[in-house]
């Protein structure tokens, strides 16, 4: 078994799985790990994915991260400025992998602000960006480099930027089954919303992480059935592709301390 990989690389490979079987959708990875996950998926399990250059062009092959040298020619496919992105978003042909600041038991998330008073937030974050529209129009998955109870909050998010499986907020005539949340990949584990009534469910534990650690660091109950498997280690081929996609090793600075993917040895 390959044990020579970092936790960031493990998360990239685990998160790439969220794009399996999704067909021709725009894979939008916000941040280094999500973008590498989407790029890896396009190179392996789902070559039909669509991808942008994070600026204004759609690409037929993902750009490597960071400085690509003066001679680099990106593989443009069509213009995809921000106004046109919404034509794609509202059609539903997109799957975003995002990193919010709070996620609650419904899968609702927050990147807007912390604190109960929206008129004077305790901590102002970005604002809701495209989260409201993304979450009601297309699939969404989550990545976080720090699985803790500040992220996975006990109550509802301070500001609900994106919809989840919350019956109280369900718009009239809409169904909770219209909400499409995929994986949650963190530095501890992989989860999804496949528990009873869309409850958050543990899918796999990263090597060296216990179920207790996940429970202690999650502000709401997590459904577990049987003995949770280990998150699959990256293959040599995946690691080589990741290295090509991230030649400046930006992934090394995405999870505090850049720990190894298999923490059984470190323990």
């Amino acid at each position, binding site marked *: 078994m390959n044990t020579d990989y970092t936790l960031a690389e493990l998360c990239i490979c685990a998160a790439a799985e969220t794009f399996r079987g999704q067909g021709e959708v725009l894979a939008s990875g916000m941040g280094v790990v999500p973008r590498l996950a989407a790029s890896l998926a396009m190179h392996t399990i789902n070559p039909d994915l669509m991808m942008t*250059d*994070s*600026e*204004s*062009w759609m690409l037929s092959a993902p750009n490597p991260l*960071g*400085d*690509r040298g003066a001679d680099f020619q990106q593989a443009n496919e069509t*213009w995809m*400025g*921000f*106004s046109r992105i*919404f034509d794609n*978003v*509202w059609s539903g042909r997109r799957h975003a992998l995002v990193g919010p600041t709070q996620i609650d038991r419904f899968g*609702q998330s927050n990147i*807007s*602000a912390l604190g109960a*008073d*929206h*008129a*004077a*937030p*305790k*901590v*102002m*974050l*970005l*604002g*809701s*960006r*495209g*989260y*409201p*529209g993304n*979450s*009601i*129009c297309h699939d969404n998955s989550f990545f976080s480099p720090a699985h803790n109870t500040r992220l996975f909050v006990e109550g509802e998010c301070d*500001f*609900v*930027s*994106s*919809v989840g499986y*919350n019956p109280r*907020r*369900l*718009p*009239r*005539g*809409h169904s909770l089954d219209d909400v499409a949340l995929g994986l949650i990949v963190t530095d501890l584990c992989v989860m999804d919303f496949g528990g009873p009534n869309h409850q958050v469910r543990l899918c796999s534990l990263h090597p060296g992480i216990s179920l207790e650690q996940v429970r202690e660091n999650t502000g709401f109950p997590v459904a577990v059935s049987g003995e949770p498997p280990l998150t699959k280690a990256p293959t040599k081929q995946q690691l080589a592709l990741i290295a090509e996609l991230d030649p400046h090793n930006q992934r090394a600075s995405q999870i505090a301390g850049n720990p190894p993917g298999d923490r059984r040895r470190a323990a």
Partner: protein
Amino acid sequence: MDKTMTSSQVVDQLEDGMTIGIGGWGPRRKPMALVREILRSELRDLTLVSYGGADVGMLCAAGKLRKLIFAFVSLDFIPLEPYFRQARQSGSLEVMEIDEGLLLLGLRAAAWRLPYIPTQVGLGTDIVDKNPEIKLVDSPYDEREWLAMPALKLDAALLHVDHADNRGVCQISGPDHYMDDMFARAAERTYVSCDELVDSSYFHAPQQARLVFWERAVTTGVVHIPGGAHPSSCNPLYGFDVPHFKEYSASAKQDTGFEGYAQRYLKGSEADYQAAVGGLDAIRKLPLPVY
């Protein structure tokens, strides 16, 4: 019709309490010279509509805003805009926080002279709960409820482009015009600063005319200010000024705060500003960002 004017003539046409839209996106292609002219003026109580960057932060810090309509305020590589955060956390700023796409629909509704545009965007989130101005509507065609995004009518729009002629034909030859066309169309009056003022014959070639996103009748005034987007970018002419944004952002943590930044950069004319940031040649050499 010659629409050229100076930035002070533009600001003279703005009034306290107006709703102003500012084009660009985050740290990209903002009409910052026009923003600096507002900062030098007595204008106040403005309502601002923006895909926000330092335009929002500076106008917040200078106490020019009564209300902000926004989906985000960010400098991209510095994700959190420091003076916008201060204003929000102090509770001094009235806000209408919406989704990026809702902002586009609001501008479209205004541009198309509609009271609202129905959409699913925002349903089920705090966009509905925290914005009493935003209503839900029934559809005559189905049993669902929809969000009715109200028109965001602008008294004025401020934009920056790379090329324009004196009749108000404006070109954005960078890779994205963002929502600038909708800002222009949503506004009663649209003022555009340009890096290069060109003869109308410049647009005769189809590949140049193709990069014009609204008709000249939409443009009220044209201001020739080379480097006028600085410290934001004007792709393909120059990138955004990373060291300058870092200094601006750091000023929020210093005792002198925005006043310190303003003393150094905003007290004189636009020419003084450009001299303080290294001159137009230095601006034009700023590298384009890599994403």
